[in-house]
Structure formats: structure tokens, C-alpha cells
């Protein structure tokens, strides 16, 4: 076990996976000498050479498209998109190419590849650097969408993503990159893609969240449980596509109440799918409406107001109170 930040865990996992499998190669903007703008690939080019850790020109469609080509020819590319807000440039290669090549080829060609991208707010970035666009890929069959909320999860999920035989969008909450250090086993372990993690059991209410908002939710819940004697279950989805229906449903069947928290804008976001799913399969267990505490339905705003725009303790608390008022 070693104490690692999330970014260290990511860097460590990339190193381990590249050692394990010659076919794993990394490509992206500024990932070589610079080690990535967040240092996720720090030191890797020195270790593995310029052929395995490749700086690319500024062309996201080409980064993902080339990765598709490589992956279908036996490599396991790990592409970095510098910030998730730039994925729009690569949308066809993500949603129409990587996601569909298995389908298009009648199952004869696969694209085992990972697209890594930092995402989420609270870090005072310039425009389009903090957007949470994971919902677009939940609506793109063929792509898996995974996001860790801790250093431990980052390691187990990233290793799984790299070894997965389907394309995986691996989203890294940038505000958590260095937010904490945790004990992480150096040994190989995998966390199942498509499996949610019940962070904490509870009886009165289920909070469903993932990625950047997980530590926040944990704090809010700890505070509320202490002061109000409630028992709240927290589910960290870890994967939003495919969704872990079973875990979500059995929790809500138990508690009868759900609050969903994410930074993505509300309309058409992941929370909508989760809510609809619960409605479809556990409606009669619900004792209160499902409340979504999310980014507002505006573009991600300027840094000076982002803290109030993002789901914060006040708004999550309000959501909990509202659900409990029924």
C-alpha cells in the first residue's frame, strides 16, 4: 500500500499497464515531455519512449480516430483529451466510430481503447474546461463511461478500462486529482465496469452520484446524519454506461427515496435516465419524488460564479430536505 493522490494513482496505473502489455500506448496533446497538463502521464515518455507515449498535434478527432484505427489493429491505445469540453471535436469518432465498429462489422472488429479526459468544475478554469458532458455518451450505445471518485477506484477502474474489449470513456474529476491522498495497493486489482459501489448503507434515503461530487455528498451526509439522526445510503455509480440497475433499484426499493447529484446540466442529463429507470421499475416503492441536484440548465458559467452554480452543500441539503418532507 502506498499513499497516493488520484492523479498519482492514474499515473501509476498507466505505468503498470504499459509494463504489463506492450500493446498499450498513450497518445494526446502535451502528454510526452510535459507529462500532461495535469501530469497524468508524467515520466512515462522517459520510461517507455516516444513511440509509446506520443505527443499529438492539436486535433481531437484525429486523436480518437487514430486510436480507433490502432485499436482495430491490435493495439490498446489510451488517448487523452486534454479537457472533456474538447470532446465535441471528436464526437463522430467517439459516438459513430469507436462506439459502432463492433456493430458495423457484425462483431468481427473491436476497438479496445480508452479515452481519458479530466472533467468537472470548481477549479476556476477558462471556458469549456469544466463541462460535464458524460450524458452525451450515456446516449451513445457501444461506449462505456466510467469515472472514479477516489485514488483506489481510479486504479482499479483504469486498469479494467484498459483491459476491456470495448471502448471506454474514462473521466477524471479534476478537482479530485490532488484533493486527498489515500492508501492504494500497488498490486494488480480490477474494479468491475458497470458495477456501482455502495459507499455507505442507509435506510431513509438513497443518494446516487459519481465522480467529482462524491466527496461532497459524503461530507453533506455525514453532517446531516450527525445533526438529524438520519440514515442515508450513498451510491457511487462508478460507471454511468451501462448503469448498474440492480444496485440502484434495490437501494431505492429499500429506502423509498432518491436524490441524484451530478455536475452535468439537468435537462437530458444522466440524472434523467436514473430517475426514469427508478420510475419504470420501482415506482411503487417511492414515497417521494426523485430530486435531481445538478448543474443548472445554462452553459457552464464563468469562474466567479461557478461555486453557486455547481451542486453544493446547500443545494444538496435542500434536495434531501425536500425528499424527506414527503
Amino acid at each position, binding site marked *: 500500500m502506498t499513499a497516493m493522490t488520484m492523479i498519482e494513482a492514474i499515473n501509476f496505473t498507466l505505468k503498470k499497464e504499459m509494463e504489463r502489455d506492450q500493446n498499450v500506448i498513450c497518445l494526446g496533446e502535451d502528454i510526452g515531455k510535459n507529462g500532461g497538463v495535469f501530469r497524468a502521464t508524467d515520466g512515462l515518455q522517459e520510461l517507455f519512449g516516444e513511440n509509446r507515449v506520443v505527443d499529438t*498535434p492539436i486535433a481531437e*478527432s*484525429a486523436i480518437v480516430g487514430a486510436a480507433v*484505427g*490502432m485499436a482495430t489493429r491490435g493495439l490498446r491505445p489510451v488517448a487523452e483529451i486534454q479537457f472533456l469540453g474538447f470532446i465535441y471535436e471528436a464526437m463522430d469518432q467517439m459516438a459513430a466510430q469507436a462506439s459502432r465498429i463492433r456493430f458495423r462489422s457484425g462483431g468481427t472488429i473491436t476497438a479496445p481503447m480508452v479515452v481519458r479526459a479530466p472533467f468537472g468544475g470548481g477549479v476556476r478554469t477558462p471556458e469549456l474546461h469544466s463541462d460535464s458532458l458524460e450524458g452525451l455518451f450515456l446516449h451513445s450505445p457501444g461506449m462505456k463511461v466510467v469515472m472514479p471518485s477516489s485514488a483506489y477506484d481510479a486504479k482499479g477502474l483504469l486498469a479494467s478500462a484498459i483491459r476491456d474489449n*470495448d471502448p471506454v470513456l474514462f473521466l477524471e474529476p479534476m478537482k479530485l486529482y490532488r484533493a486527498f491522498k489515500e492508501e492504494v495497493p500497488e498490486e494488480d486489482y480490477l474494479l468491475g465496469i458497470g458495477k456501482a459501489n455502495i459507499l455507505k448503507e442507509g435506510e431513509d434515503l438513497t443518494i446516487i452520484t459519481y465522480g467529482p461530487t462524491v466527496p461532497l455528498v459524503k461530507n453533506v451526509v455525514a453532517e446531516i446524519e450527525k445533526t438529524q439522526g438520519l440514515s442515508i445510503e450513498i451510491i457511487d455509480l462508478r460507471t454511468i454506461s*451501462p448503469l448498474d440497475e440492480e444496485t440502484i433499484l434495490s437501494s431505492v426499493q429499500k429506502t423509498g427515496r432518491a436524490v441524484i447529484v451530478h455536475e452535468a446540466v439537468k435537462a437530458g442529463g444522466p440524472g434523467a435516465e436514473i430517475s426514469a429507470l427508478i420510475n419504470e421499475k420501482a415506482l411503487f416503492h417511492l414515497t417521494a419524488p426523485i430530486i435531481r441536484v445538478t448543474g443548472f440548465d445554462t452553459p457552464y458559467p464563468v469562474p466567479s460564479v461557478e461555486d453557486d452554480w455547481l451542486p453544493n452543500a446547500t443545494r444538496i441539503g435542500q434536495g434531501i430536505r425536500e425528499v424527506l418532507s414527503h
Partner: protein
Amino acid sequence: MWLEPNETIVNKVQVLDETGKLIGSHPDVNDDELLALYKWMVQARTFDQRALKLQRQGRIGTYAPMIGQEAAQVGSAFALKKQDWIYPSYREVGACLVHGVSMENFFLYTMGHIKGGTSAQGTNVFPVQIIIGAQCLHAVGSAWASKYKDESSVSVAYIGDGGTSQGDFHEALNFAGVYKLPTVFFVQNNQWAISVPRSKQTASATIAQKAAAYGITGIQVDGNDVLAVYSTMKEALRRAREGKPVLVEAVTYRQGPHTTADDPTKYRQNGELEQWLAKDPLKRMKAFLIERGIWNEELEQVEFETANDKVTKAFEIAASTPSSKTVEVFDFVYEQKPSQLAEQQNSIQVEGVVK
């Protein structure tokens, strides 16, 4: 100081003139190869014409004919080695057949069969790409894999004149140049992108000169002259194999409609087609072969019949292939079916019973 528009001059490679007379130097091609080139063109045209007919009869779906482009497609693919890869668009039947794809496969594709996308089983031909330009990036990634694995394999992206306007085309050529990848970008400039003429697609005088933007090699060739295409492509592949990517512009003409859903009389001027029919790639090569004494009308007739029979057999196989079932589509989304998909798949089966 000022690099004026279209200052960079490109000259078209030609070997045969329109009547089939040798005007360039004779490429290094023996008689067997000459005959094979012609026979492939016959096969491609025969397939194409049958496909058109079958579409009109409602037996296959939308089809994009390649008539007029046989020399460009056959000449280029004939130069490939077995280990080379093709990344085709929707109009590459000729090239794909030469590189080993079966005609059944194409028929299944046009019939909207799930198996229509399985060309890469047994041949180095990627499934048909519908999104203009996307295949260029896949070719780049594939070439990158070849280089990484130290395999002597070139990846060839086929694209049209219209496709050169896409951002993906640019990004692909730029990557190929930067990483010195074994790629050939084979542009069939067939003068039209559906209804938009080449002149409105880009202000550059040639497509070949676009290579200048990427520090790679460019060349323009008479795309209706199968010998010119073949020899040019051979040299392009040789360079690419050494890590020097090449942009080839084959100047040709789409004699037919864009697809069976298109009506070119809406936008094409009278007389244009006729001018290009005079430059037909088969006609020209046939004249050359006859002049050379290795072809005649009798052989010609036999060849068309043989080609026709092959098409018939292929269509019969395709037509008798059990049609795809909706339940199957759930099997090709992920390696392992998530529970939601399994549930959806099951709902179909139940329905099948109910109906």
C-alpha cells in the same frame, strides 16, 4: 514573397491516351498482369451494372455505382500487397473486390444484412465507411499500428474529391506527415460530390497539391488509365512503405448517378457525360490489349459472361442467406451484454411470439 494562389504546378501522369495508345513510358507490367487488370475491370463493371438492375427491381437497397472509376479502383488495388489494408468509402466495390472481398459480402451489405459489414474477415478491408472523411483517420491509426509492430503494411484510405473538404481529411494527412506513417490517401476525383462540381469544392487547382500543406508527397494521375494508376500506385506504396505518406489524386469521372436515389439530370450539363464516355477506362484498355495482340472480341465476350456468372452466383448466395433478425443486433454492441440490453433483447423474442 507572396505565394500566389495555385502557384504550385502539378502535372498529370498518363500512360495511355484516350484511344489506348501508349504516350507515357511503358510501365513494368507483364502480359498476365495486363490481362488481370482488364479482367478485374470487367468484373467490377459487371457487378456494378447488375447491382443497379437489382436495386431497380427492389432486391437490394440504395447502391452507389462506380461505373467510370474502374481503372482508378482496380489499378490502385492491384498494386497492393496482401498485407496492405484498404479503408473504403461507400463507392469502392472495384478496389475491394481486387483486394479479396467477396461479391456476396457486397450484396449482403446492400441488402442491409448484418453480415454486410464483415469484409475484414479474411481480407484486409475495413467495413464501408459512410461518414465522409472518417476512414482517413482509421487508416492513419492502422498504419501507426503497422509501424509500431514493424510490419511492412501500408494502409490506404479511399476518398472522393468532395471528401477532401472535411476536417478529418486534413487531420489525417497532417498526422501521417508528422509520424511518417505508411499511408496512401487515394482520392478519386470523379468531378462530382453528389451535385457539387469539383470546382465548387475547393479553390485549389488540383487536389494533389494539397500535399504541400502536410509536407508529404502529392501526385495526380489520369484515373481512367489503369496503367498510369497502377504504376503510380506502385511507386506511392513503395514510398509509403518507407514511411513517406503519399496523396494520390486520380482524375476520373462518375458516369452514373451518385446513388440509385439520385437524379443527375437535375444538375449535370448536357454533353459532359458523353465527353467522359469517350475516355472510358475499359474501352481504352481494351484497345491497348487488342493492339498488343493479347485480346480480341471473342475473349471479351467470354470474359463478360464469366464475370456475369460469378455475379449471379454471388447474388444467389446472398439472396439465400437467411436474413438478419432483430434479436441479433443486441449481440454486437458490447462484448458482454449489459442487463438492460439483455432485457430489451428478450422483449423482442417475446414479441416475436405474440405477433
